[in-house]
């Protein structure tokens, strides 16, 4: 067991964890932040994407103990209160989901994409950047549309 201090969605969390605990399990089981999903066991699907110190990572391929002193943001911490984040709103408006399982990971990846590439994301960039996120319902058309819209809205 190791004692860790992690800043999760703006809150300081100080807990003993078993060393082998994956970040995704720590978030879901210990912290009950179940918006971060597990869609595969091979770090390919991207349903578990969260931000660690502002960068998108797959929380199923990182240990909780590796997050000591770091800032972790999950889909639950994207906004303060009830109002949706611009990217969440764009996914809603563009109907960029069907079952919704991949959506939290898609949105966290999309927000990171805007951070790195700026507001004017073109379709090629979005599709290249989405390689680490798999959706088995929509065929991606509306997801790409939503990320374009969301990226523009985020800059306002």
């Amino acid at each position: 067991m190791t004692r860790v201090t992690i800043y999760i969605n703006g809150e300081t969390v100080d807990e003993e964890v078993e060393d082998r605990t994956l970040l995704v399990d720590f978030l879901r089981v210990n912290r009950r932040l179940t918006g971060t999903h597990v869609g595969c066991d091979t770090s390919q699907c991207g349903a578990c994407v969260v931000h660690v110190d502002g960068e998108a990572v797959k929380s199923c391929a990182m240990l909780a103990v590796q997050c000591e002193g770091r800032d972790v943001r999950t889909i639950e911490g994207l906004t303060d209160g009830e109002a949706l984040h611009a990217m969440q709103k764009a996914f809603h408006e563009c109907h960029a989901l069907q079952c919704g399982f991949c959506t939290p990971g898609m949105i966290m990846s999309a927000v990171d994409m805007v951070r790195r590439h700026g507001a004017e994301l073109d379709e090629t960039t979005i599709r290249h950047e989405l390689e680490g996120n798999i959706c088995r319902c929509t065929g991606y058309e509306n997801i790409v549309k939503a990320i374009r819209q969301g990226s523009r809205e985020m800059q306002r």
Partner: protein
Amino acid sequence: MNRFDFKRVDSVQAAVTLLCEIEDSSVLAGGQTLIPTMKQGLSAPAALIDLGGISELREIRIEEDAIVVGAMCTHADVANSSSIRQHIPGLAHLAGQIGDAQVRNRGTIGGSIANNDPAADYPAACLGLDATILTDKRAIAADSFFLGLFETALDEGELITGVRFRHCRRSTYLKFRNPASRFAIVGVFVGRGKEGWRVAITGAGRDGVFRWRAAEEALNGDCRPQALEPLRLSIEEMLDDIHAKGDYRAHLIKVLACDAVEKLLR
């Protein structure tokens, strides 16, 4: 995943000491291969020594005619470094094609090279750029570093601290990727340095990454893509698996190598 002890260190020396002291221990770099492997039960170290806290390993150092990339630099660090993009464009381009965006934010050059997966991208850059692998003990030429599938010249308890790449403005990497895993079915790194052309192939060799010396010689005599036309790769030396047959891989190598040379001459 098996139980293990997690050890944090803040210096190379401390990491090496623990690595030698604790039986069956392993260093943890970006963890993008090691953690999934441990989840599958394919690897079960007794302790993980986390290199994430050693800040000096995350530096990109600029020398007069070379760039030293710290072992813990992520693929995203390399892909986005303005110095690397300017002086060794092929290396930055290669790093930007590894895995996916999230993997590039965590995966490291040191981890990739130490693992020497036969389908990994970085080993091709090291061979194609005549790089030097720096460890806590010595400097190893890339030509003597990659020994076979998942095998390297590293001794027990030896740690990669960085990789020195000499500037090579004319360098590029083309990759035919497996659409599911994003690993290279064939990856071709081509560089034209002071000592002539280098062509390094990953993903395809039965013994892992290799230099296609016949192509290098041909290009040193005639630097057009056509120079590669008459060459034949030995199909027996190609990987042959469910992803691609040996003859298909041999064919892809030539096609990609010609494209890469053409791209560099443009």
